[in-house]
Every structure is written in C-alpha cells, then in structure tokens.
C-alpha cells in the first residue's frame, strides 16, 4: 500500500512529529511504500538545522534524516508555511536576503501542489498534529 504522511506539529511541542517519523519507519518495515512526507504549518520546523536538544534527549531530526538517507523518502516542506517559520533553503535565503539557510538539505521546499499530488498518488493519507 502507498502512504502519504502529513505533519503539522513542531518537534519542540508534544510528541506528534516523533510519532509521525516512527509511524513512517513502521510503514516501511511492513513492506509498504511512502510516496511523500509533507510538512505544513508548524510541522515545517521539523526540517530545521538549528534546533539544539539536551544531550540526554534524542534529536527528533535523526529519524527524518534516517528516512531520507536510508530509505530515500521524499521529505517536502510547504514553502508558504516555511517562510513564515523562518525555514529557508539556500535559494530562499538569498532571495529574501536573510543570513543563511535554516533547512536541512534532506528536505525540499515546495508548494501545496506536492501535497495534492501525493494525495492523488497514495492509497492512504495519515495526518499527524493540527
């Protein structure tokens, strides 16, 4: 079965985004496919390179990076939300004359069309947060 996961909450607040990443790993372990993970609203901050966590806590970004690097999962951040949350890649940071990129390169900034496309191509849409 093909899944798309929509994440709308920040890793800094609550456990929703951790559950989403954990769910994604279990989906793959069961032999299903993930078409895309789409990050919207506060969920865009999951792609931040500048969050710092205490040493005795797991950095929630690790699970997302694992999904992207080990399982080639497409991680897409809604560009409209991203700009509001200060989540910029190199291009957007230059375009808006900001000090630098704040998004990890494992994530792509793109439009809501990527969410619509993902819904059309997936059997299941699972929403976390909101």
């Amino acid at each position, binding site marked *: 079965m093909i899944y798309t996961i*929509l994440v709308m909450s920040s890793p800094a607040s609550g456990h929703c985004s951790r559950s989403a990443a954990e769910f994604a790993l279990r989906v793959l372990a069961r032999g299903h496919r993930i078409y895309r993970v789409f990050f919207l609203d506060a969920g865009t901050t999951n792609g931040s390179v500048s969050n710092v966590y205490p040493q005795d806590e797991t950095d929630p970004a690790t699970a997302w990076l694992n999904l992207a690097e080990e399982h080639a999962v497409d991680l897409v951040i809604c560009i409209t939300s991203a700009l509001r949350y200060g989540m910029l890649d190199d291009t957007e940071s230059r375009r808006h004359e900001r000090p630098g990129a704040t998004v990890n390169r494992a994530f792509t900034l793109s439009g809501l*069309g990527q969410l619509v496309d993902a*819904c*059309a191509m*997936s059997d299941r*849409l699972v*929403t976390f947060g*909101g």
Partner: protein
Amino acid sequence: MIVAISPKKSTLIVVRHSPYGSSLARASIDAALAHAAFGQPVDLLFMGDGVLQLLPCQDSSAIDARNIGRLLASLPMYDIDSIYIDARAAAHYKLDISQVPLDARPLENAELHQLMAQYDHLMGF
C-alpha cells in the same frame, strides 16, 4: 492556473480550529484551494471549534489578520461547493446557519459518519 493531476482522489478536509487562534484555519483553506487548483475533488467539513470560522460579519482588522469569513465566502469561485457543518457544534455555539458566509449543509452525528466514509482521504486540521 489549472494543472490537472490524475488519478483523481476525493478528499474531505475536516476543519476543527477556530479562525484566529492559530495559523491552522488558514492552512486548511489553503489546502482546499490547492486541491481545487489541481482539479482534485475536495469538500469541507467544519466541526467543533471550527464552526466559528463561519461566524457572519467577522472583522479581523484589529488583530491585523486576514478575514477568514471573507476567504471562505470566495470558495465557490474555486468550485468548492460542498460545505458541511457539524450541526451539534453549530448549536453549541448558537451559530445561525442561515447567516453563515457560505451555503453550508448541517449534518447530525450519524450523517457525519456516512459523509466521512464517502471519501478516498480525510485531511484533518
């Protein structure tokens, strides 16, 4: 710009957030508009606190926010015509359905379940 995506999958966007308490109200409307722009069938259901988005005569100028009521009133222009309201939440907030900025159909609990079962995807905000 209309770019059709195939295959077509129907989506019900379930809106449960009040209009100005967070950015999620706006995010749910944007998601609906994006589906319509790409030619994907999309309907909206307002539940719980979400029915407050349908309050008539909203004035958000004092908080410098986009008027959600006005934004919702424009949905039929984008071919988003099927709008549903959780009748119990509307009654809870004493919302007069004849005054909402959209042509919306109130549904009782059993009808809500039937509605949700009709779609390929539920997108919950």
